[in-house]
């Protein structure tokens, strides 16, 4: 069964690179280790028969981690890890807690009486997802849409230092915005 081999390979790689995220000193390496781990998750989602969602996970995580690397490098005092140093706190307590959480989850997973597989997947799971999101799950979709829109607004408000008074003057009368970087549309 090639699927089984793929599962073990991707699964092992996902966990190993997930651990390496917190062991690498270099922020670039940590970020791309996380990307590798999440790419493996995307691959496993494809193995499970969800082609669209798997590829979307690959696409989104690639873009997300590439952006993340910028912030990692920006906000860490030692981004390249040339002088190894520990940035951890409460290592022992966290290790105990996480082991406990894993054991608890594992016990639940092994002991739970999982129901039998019911029904067959749709011929085209992507289409099924689309009709679900646009039909019975439209509320989920709309909530996600508003959440994303709110995120865009909130992110810009939080991250920018300049408001409209900086851009258009105290009386907001300036005809063109006074921006430190000029844009490409007639400014």
């Amino acid at each position: 069964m090639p699927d089984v081999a793929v599962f073990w390979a991707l699964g092992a790689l996902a966990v190993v690179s997930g651990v390496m995220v917190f062991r690498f000193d270099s922020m670039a390496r940590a970020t791309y280790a996380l990307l590798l781990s999440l790419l493996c998750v995307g691959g496993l989602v494809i193995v499970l028969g969800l082609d669209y969602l798997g590829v979307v996970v690959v696409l989104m995580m690639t873009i997300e981690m590439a952006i993340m690397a910028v912030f990692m490098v920006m906000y860490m005092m030692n981004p390249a890890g040339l002088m190894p140093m520990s940035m951890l706190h409460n290592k022992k307590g966290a290790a105990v807690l996480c082991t406990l959480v894993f054991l608890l989850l594992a016990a639940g997973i092994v002991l739970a009486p999982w129901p039998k597989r019911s029904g067959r997947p749709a011929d085209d799971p992507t289409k099924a997802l689309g009709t679900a999101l646009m039909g019975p799950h439209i509320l989920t979709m709309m909530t996600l849409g508003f959440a994303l829109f709110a995120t865009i607004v909130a992110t810009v408000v939080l991250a920018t230092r300049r408001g409209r008074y900086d851009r258009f003057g105290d009386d907001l009368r300036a005809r063109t915005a006074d921006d430190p970087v000029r844009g490409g549309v007639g400014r």
Partner: protein
Amino acid sequence: MAESAETAGTAPLWAVVLLPVVLTVVALAAAGFDAVLSAGAEHGRGAGRGARTLRAAVAPVREGIALLARQRRRTTADDAALGRIGIALVPLAAVLAAAVVPWGFRAVTDPVVGIVWFNAMEALAWAAVWLAGWGPNSVLSLIGGYRFLAQGLAYELPHMFALTTAALGAGSLRVGEVVRAQQGMWFVVWMPAAFAVYLLSACAMAFWGPFGHPLGRDVAGGVVAEYSGVDRLLLLGGRWLLLVATAAFSVPLFLGGGHGPLLPAWAWTVLKTAGVLALLIVGRRLVPTLRMERYMEFAWLVLVPLTLLQALVVAVVVLNR
């Protein structure tokens, strides 16, 4: 048209080996054509024009071999592993993206979500360029990497909308279905805006031509500043592979794939791809290098609304069909 019966096929297994070779040959031809145009612009008409043209046409091959013979360069405190992964990923992502591009009516593979796959591979190349810029521990190459990340934020969104529009018109994410939907009329006829945006972003994601800022002269070559030998060859060659792959993908998306009168399907694909490549190569001489913040505002204020309108028009047409 007899070919309609055999649409959306998958090529035999040996095509996997053939694909990188074909892609490289087309890339060399495109680079040669580009060099011929450059030589012509530099020297104009005059004696010895034929010999010069010939020399320019094989210049990419010669340069490639020369780079192979040159030594690699290491810088102090570099991150060689990440840099090399980034360099190798650029051509690899181009080949993986090209795997879903049908030649004639057959692609190496035709997955149900081929269009999303193509987009994911482009994103991988995008992230890889930053890695290649990070690797050598050099300011100039890192600046180049950052420039490409910023450029990606500008071109990626309109590009995705352009891809979505083609998928919307066909009602499928499978590339074979998109080609089949264009049997009567090419998508470019009723999605001209999406096609134009796609061509722009094709250049942008290959960081080539007017979008070559990440490798700009003002930063001494940017991402490739510190690379020599095989590393440089893979990066600069991978750039041409990306350009060829994206240009070739515009054919099944907007230009009807292998559909066309008289000639066989594969010949139409080759002809159309060559046409798109020639358009890009000639067109890049007319446009100066774009800084990413300029393109950013243009992309978000003009291209995103434009592609959204285009998608709306297509959606209305599809719903009323």
